[in-house]
């Protein structure tokens, strides 16, 4: 995108500020942590992609991914978690996102927001009930890139990519949305 002399304007439009970008990421994190998945789905553009590669891969079809969700598969993912008894999410994961190191590459109508995220996750059995893999608090560390597009009066996610630090290692249950 060609930038104008004015630092806060890109091609005459108000650029995405760092404050706005952070607020966007914080809100997304809160929607996920509060399990407001239907609202989370609305953050994406219709052609938006949510991609968590399993290894370094130039595009989501070169190698199998951990998550490779277009709109339909995101909807399926939310349906599965909220409307069916998926054993791997029963009990469900609790998550807590920390968002940091936010950088903005302003553009119009698309902007790139880079961040580092740590997602803490636990499936608690509740009380004293335990089985293997329950009750263990796990950390996912990820480098994130949100490609946002200004559409219908708001910034929306055209592509969210998360490169997990342990993406090519043996990894356990990742059936929660992060």
């Amino acid at each position, binding site marked *: 995108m060609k930038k104008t002399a004015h630092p806060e304007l890109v091609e005459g439009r108000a650029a995405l500020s760092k404050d706005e970008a952070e607020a966007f990421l914080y809100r997304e994190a809160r929607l996920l942590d509060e399990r407001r998945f239907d609202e989370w789905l609305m953050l994406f553009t219709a052609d938006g992609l949510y991609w968590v590669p*399993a290894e370094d891969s130039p595009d989501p079809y070169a190698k*199998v991914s*951990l998550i490779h969700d277009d709109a339909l598969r995101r909807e399926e993912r939310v349906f599965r978690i909220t*409307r*069916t008894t998926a*054993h791997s999410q029963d009990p469900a994961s609790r998550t807590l996102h920390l968002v940091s190191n936010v950088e903005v590459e302003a553009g119009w109508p698309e902007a790139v927001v880079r961040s580092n995220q740590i997602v803490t996750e636990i499936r608690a059995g509740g009380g004293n009930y335990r089985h293997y893999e329950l009750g263990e608090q796990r950390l996912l560390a990820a480098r994130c890139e949100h490609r946002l597009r200004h559409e219908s009066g708001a910034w929306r996610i055209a592509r969210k990519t998360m490169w997990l630090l342990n993406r090519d290692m043996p990894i356990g*249950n990742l059936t929660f949305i992060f």
Partner: protein
Amino acid sequence: MRNRDELRYDLDELVIDAGDDFRVNGLMYTDPHIFEIEMERIFGRSWVYVAHASEIPNPFDFKTTTIGLRPVIVSRAENGDIHVLLNRCRHRGSVVCRFETGNARFHSCRYHGWTYGADGALVSVPQEGAYPKSFDKSRLGLMPVARVANYRGLIFATLAEDAPDFVSYLGAAKRFLDYQLDHSPAGEIVLNRGAHRTEYQGNWKFQIENSTDGYHGNTVHESFWKLMHEFGNRGGQHGNYAATDIRKILKRREQGAVYGFENGHAMLEYPLPETGLDTKAPGPQGDYLRALEAKHGRAALDLIMPQYNLTIFPNVGILLDQIRVVRPIAPDRTEVTIQLYDLAGAPEAVNRQRFEGYERFFGPSSFGSPDDVEMFAINQTGLQAKEVEWLVLTRGLERERADGDGVRIGHVTDETPQRAFHRAWKKAMAA
């Protein structure tokens, strides 16, 4: 009931196979001593899958893997030969290759620098002059496995000099392995789509037994059938289901068969899609079927194209477009590497469709396999109640039939495959 203070058992007491009784002792999933013996008698003696030739296509390509707990290197030498070498320096025992895959003319031990060629030969030793006259480099190459078999690109290795040849080991399961590979119009699969690497807190045998279990799907994967009912197959087709109505799916799941083979191989078969094979269909799917028809003839297609979930004893599955390697780490810890493969010679659109179906059901974030893994975790937990001792595996024992060559065929929900696995397990452990 056995006294817990003295965990003494004969290894052949752990599988009871007598008339209408078939039970296995829970200790085989939990006991560290039994696990150690498995690493010797099961993994140290069977033919174990180590690689596919397409993973190491060029001279000096290598990958590392394990046979049981043993680290091994699968290496292609300059002349194209594939060597399977124990990844242990002959000097003081360090691994000499520390990467999952790569290309290297030499593997050099990081500790003192002993350096080996791609064929395992010891080619250089730093400051060699200090060794006694008897020091003979030609006897100190990386130790090769006893034998290597390349079956249509699948590389198997055994540490047993006296193992049967690999085709005899496959026995009657060979026909079905061929059918799987014949899904490729070129007769060849290619592993070039990366891997899902997963881990779970449970015994390695759970994953192998489950891979041919036609009984668990209705309960364990109910979530997935509901998803198919709601969204259809647009997001990627799983298995041979044309219908997506949940009642029709559950009915379809009663059709097919299970097989138990000699030597512990096992299979779950689901029939052709209810719509049949349309070799007249326009587009890539029709092109694909026509290519197979031209090669094998129409009648053979009905044999080649059902869904076959095949496991080869002890720890590899070839099923649903993937090679699944189950790697034991500890009695209650297992890693599984799943590699989707491409069908060489199939239209790109067909491989893409398989890719989408695979991703929907398999991998740590998918909608299918994580629910299986949850079962392995609750299974391992329940088995801590050791006083119960036995797991019951008699399902279908009276309705399965013998089919010659030691093959038994059961109803699709029967435990014929698991019994075949445990018979081989018992035989190997008692030997």
